[in-house]
């Protein structure tokens, strides 16, 4: 594995988006992962529609029927991948733009599908496996506890104590080997996370969190997705 890796430098990451006052982080995490996978499959970086997921995806957890993807009220990336697989794919952002509300009806147009899911799977808790899947398959959909993100400005976040109760969906786009931790007087390896709170939050919309001990549960729910190569169709 390379010591440092960043999909932003390799063209697989779209500009930072903003979910607005809507609990739709799960849809941004989902589109981010599929945007990366679609880039790897087709060589084209296409921004995909979160609003399609917000309006049309009501996929439920098979183990818990009452727990379904529900627009601004929350959802789960794995369920969203399942929806995308069943629906046939996701439209482009420009064809189905984000509104930040879930009061609209589903306007999915099958003829405008821009990216398709081939398959998706969960990655084991092992940090080397997470890194390997990131490098091989593209950005990964991950869940995290966001309590420290409310006040985060910059730097490598490495709280001594952080709950592992997952409450936020984000996108893992890379890792670094040497984020300086002044108090601990040593370099700390870190994950690079793309968030969906706009470019004015964090480090131009990104968050760095230290690697090594499942901080804030960042290693707990990691999903990788593969896209269909639509060029060959």
């Amino acid at each position, binding site marked *: 594995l390379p010591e440092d890796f960043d999909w932003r430098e390799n063209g697989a990451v779209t500009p930072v988006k903003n979910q607005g006052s809507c609990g739709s*982080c799960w849809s941004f995490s989902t589109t981010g992962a599929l945007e990366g996978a679609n880039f790897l499959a087709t060589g084209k970086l296409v921004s995909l529609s979160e609003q399609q997921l917000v309006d049309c995806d009501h996929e439920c957890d098979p183990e818990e029927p009452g727990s379904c993807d*529900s627009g601004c009220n929350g*959802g789960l990336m794995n369920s969203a991948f399942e929806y995308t697989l069943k629906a046939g794919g996701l439209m482009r952002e420009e064809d189905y733009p984000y509104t930040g509300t879930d009061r609209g009806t589903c306007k999915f147009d099958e003829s405008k599908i821009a990216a398709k899911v081939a398959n998706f799977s969960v990655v084991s808790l092992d940090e080397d*496996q997470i890194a390997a*899947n990131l490098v091989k398959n593209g950005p990964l959909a991950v869940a995290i506890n966001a309590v420290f993100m409310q006040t985060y400005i*910059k730097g490598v976040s*490495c*709280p001594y104590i952080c709950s592992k109760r997952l409450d936020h969906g984000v996108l893992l786009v890379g890792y670094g080997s040497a984020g300086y931790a002044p108090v601990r007087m040593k370099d700390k390896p870190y994950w690079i996370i793309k968030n969906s709170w706009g470019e004015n939050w964090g480090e131009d919309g990104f968050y760095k969190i230290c690697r090594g001990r499942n901080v804030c549960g960042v290693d707990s729910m990691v999903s990788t997705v593969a896209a269909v190569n639509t060029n060959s169709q």
Partner: protein
Amino acid sequence: ISTATFSAEGSEVDPFIRQVTDGHDGAEPQLLTAEHHFSLFKSRFKKSYGSQEEHDYRFKVFQDNLRRAARHQKLDPSASHGVTQFSDLTPREFRRTYLGLRRLRLPKDATEAPILPTDN
């Protein structure tokens, strides 16, 4: 470790943003009060409130969040914590409005990614 500092009035102020004014030779750098921070916050993030009551309530929440940011800074010294666009929201409002991950229960039949080689 940076720690929270207090103004003469006893109100906690953000330890990470300090206003340094020029043209006052010999003067101590002026620490901002919570009121100043709130004013800067409203201007920076274009915040306005419908009533004085709402404004006062948001100011109280903002002060709580300054203290929270200082606590986070102590717990997370390798990052910088301070005023963000969410500084006028209670933790509950923040969770309700900007988070949205459903309670997780991975299905037993979820496909697991194959183990990849990580050496070389």
